[in-house]
């Protein structure tokens, strides 16, 4: 099976701004791939280049085995795209837009359409101008998820959805993966990416800074340990790989590199442990670490 998305060294400039600056991105067949980055990092630009809407300046883009610029029409038949800000025609009803987009992609599954409308609690009879932001997103999502396509490209699709609908969205993305579809999910909502994605690419300033499975990303990262100890914590701070040690009476908190975890835990049990919690680094922390590094530099 071909790799649905393969991007290497992608460069796109707008005037003097370098929106994409050597981006690499590989999405494997059947996975949900998180595409993560702060606003303005270049996520939407990358997606538009993937869709053949933008002309690239350098680099290589392969979409479903083809060239998205040259073979746009044929490739678009096999994918569905939801932009981050779905705008509707004021005088068309939501149902009409769903059908229109579905037909223009080459048909949608009527049973799944009905099921989607039901679970997203969307009234398809309202006119475009009458929908709230969240409901406009739902129109785009229903149209995409009801289409029989191999690849879903979702650009911050849940902006404006409430937490309940976020759950519904996650259910449908899992179902799409179970059906063997590939999903590229651009997001800055880390909980969503953590809950859904098999692999993640973090983008910053138009360049990928990190890519891999969530556990790979956590590898060589620090685990947060919080413990209540019975003895004195002497010597813990001298251990290599232990950072940010804070002692508050009998309570200790520190971050430890994975390589030093074993030694740190041994030392803790020597001291005597009454309670212990350990937390893997959240994506949030990974993300902030990159983001802060950038701010420090600038």
């Amino acid at each position, binding site marked *: 099976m071909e790799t649905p998305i393969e991007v290497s060294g992608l460069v796109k400039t*707008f005037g003097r701004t370098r929106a994409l600056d050597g981006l690499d991105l590989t999405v494997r067949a059947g996975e949900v791939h998180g595409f993560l980055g702060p606003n303005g990092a270049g996520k939407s630009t990358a997606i*538009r280049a993937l*869709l053949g*809407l*933008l*002309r690239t300046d350098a680099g290589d883009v392969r979409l479903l085995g083809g060239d998205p610029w040259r073979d*746009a*029409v*044929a490739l*678009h*038949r096999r*994918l569905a*795209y*939801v*932009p981050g*800000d*779905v*705008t*509707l*025609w*004021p*005088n*068309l*009803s939501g*149902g*009409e*837009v*769903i*059908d*229109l*987009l579905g*037909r*223009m*992609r*080459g048909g949608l599954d009527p049973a799944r359409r009905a099921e989607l409308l039901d679970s997203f609690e969307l009234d*398809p*009879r*309202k*006119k475009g*101008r*009458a929908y709230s932001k969240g409901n406009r997103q739902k129109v*785009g999502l229903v149209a995409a998820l009801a289409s029989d396509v191999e690849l879903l*490209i979702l650009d911050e699709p849940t902006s404006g959805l409430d937490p309940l609908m976020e759950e519904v969205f996650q259910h449908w993305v899992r179902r799409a993966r179970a059906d063997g579809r590939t999903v590229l999910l651009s997001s800055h909502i880390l909980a969503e990416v953590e809950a859904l994605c098999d692999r993640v690419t973090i983008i910053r300033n138009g360049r990928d800074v990190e890519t891999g499975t969530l556990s790979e990303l956590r590898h060589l990262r620090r685990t947060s340990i919080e413990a209540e100890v019975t003895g004195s914590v002497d010597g813990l701070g001298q251990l290599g790989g232990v950072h940010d040690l804070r002692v508050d009476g009998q309570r200790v908190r520190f971050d430890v590199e994975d390589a030093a975890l074993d030694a740190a835990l041994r030392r803790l049990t020597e001291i005597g442990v009454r309670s212990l919690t350990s937390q893997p680094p959240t994506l949030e922390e990974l993300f902030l670490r990159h983001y802060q590094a950038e701010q420090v530099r600038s």
Partner: protein
Amino acid sequence: MSPFTGTRHLVRLILRRDRVVLPIWILLLAVLPASYASAYAELYQTADERAAYLANTASNPSIVALLGPVFGDSIGALTVQRAGMLVLVAALASLLTVVRHTRTEEEAGRRELLGATVLGRYAGLTAALLVTYAANVLLGLLIAGGLVAAGLPGAGSLIFGAGLALTGVAFATVGGLAAQLTESAGGARGIGLGVLGLAFVLRLAGDAGGSGGAGGKAEWLSWVSPLGWAPRVRAFAGERWWVLLLPVLFAAVVALVAYPISVRRDLGAGVLPPRLGPATAGPRLAGPFGLAWRLHRGQLLGWTLGFGLLGLVLGGAADAAADAVQGNQQVADILARLGGTATLAEAYLGSSLSLTALAAAGYGIQAALRARAEETAGRAEPLLATAVSRSRWLAAHLLFALLGPVVVLAVAGLATGLSYGLSVGDVGGELLRLLGVGLAQVPAVWVLAGLAALLVGWLPRFSSAAWAVLAGCLLLGQIGAVLKLSQWALDVSPFTHTPQVLGDNWTVTPLVALTVITAALLALALRTFQTRDIPTQ
């Protein structure tokens, strides 16, 4: 906090946002009455000429129905009648301005942004009304000043300006009420335009039976219509100042209805429930062309109706217009130069239809630029991410930019032919002849639509420059001959090349050439649209 808190800030915001549009329509409407006055003064210098004009033309029932009654044969009275349409235009501009700064803002969500700041409940409506009222007062004063400068008596000038301004005020208030009723700005505009249309039809029906200043049997209809009051102040013919109270009272009553509604309803909601649409798309809404039909059909219908009405009026007035200028050599010269054909009525029809060609070009440009509007609104991108090629998507919009003008010009020609044919007793012949005149305008119109298309494809950021080109053509056509510009300069405008098909010696060559140019422009438009970024900011 008073319910008016923040009005001042909103007024400033509106003035800042309208700093171009507002002065344009004020100035445009302000200079026209004075220019009519000086034109009449020059054309009809003796009392006899004016009396003849009054008897033959100004009192003609179809002219009275269209423009309003005429009270006397003074330059002032004739000018007031001639400016009758301007009252309608001022009312229209006022109505649209108020809707744009109330419901449009609310629909776009910008009012919510402001509503969260310190803003009284009445501030939004009040600010929009205040600005529009002030614009009308200024307009009225400028008109009065212009008429006085053109040598007309002060009292008549002032009351005419006041009548026009207060009609604007009345319809501004109607706009303010309409904006409270529906959720969408389009719906509010529809209601406002409906009221304006009703007022126009009432005045038309009321004045239709009369001739000159003598009202017909149904003159009370004109007294019911807010558009009937401005002519009835009898400017320059025994002014009736009390009539000015009518639009003021009307505006006050409408405002008294609008304000309580504006407070009682929720932000973003209307009084009338929003209409629901179908839950599934009909079979025709399946691709770019089906969608384009949905997006363009309302406009096509509106333009077609407008052109049909215009054609009926033009055709009906042709004989009267020809009579009016029968004895006047100067007018005959001008018309002959413009039309270059045998009879005066035909010259009049030819030059009138060439003016409608400019309007049709406006429609063509608007339809072509719709593609760009779709792109900037973010509605092109999701479609172009489906299995639809860029050229098909663009072609769907361009189809309406090309065929729309054909439809409206054909209808204008047919309607003109119908009413002119009725007045000269040869419907069958005139119908076909004037259909021909209408269709002969098409290739020149296409060139401008093609140019707009090329801008959308090639220089999207500058696509509104198409309007500037249209304005240039309008200027060349209207004042080029008067200024005796060189033929080379006149030839720049495609409209110069439209042949006068009512005359005998014309060839099809220029029409073919214009069509070939259009084809080239369209091919380039599609080509350049293939290779650019979407969206281009």
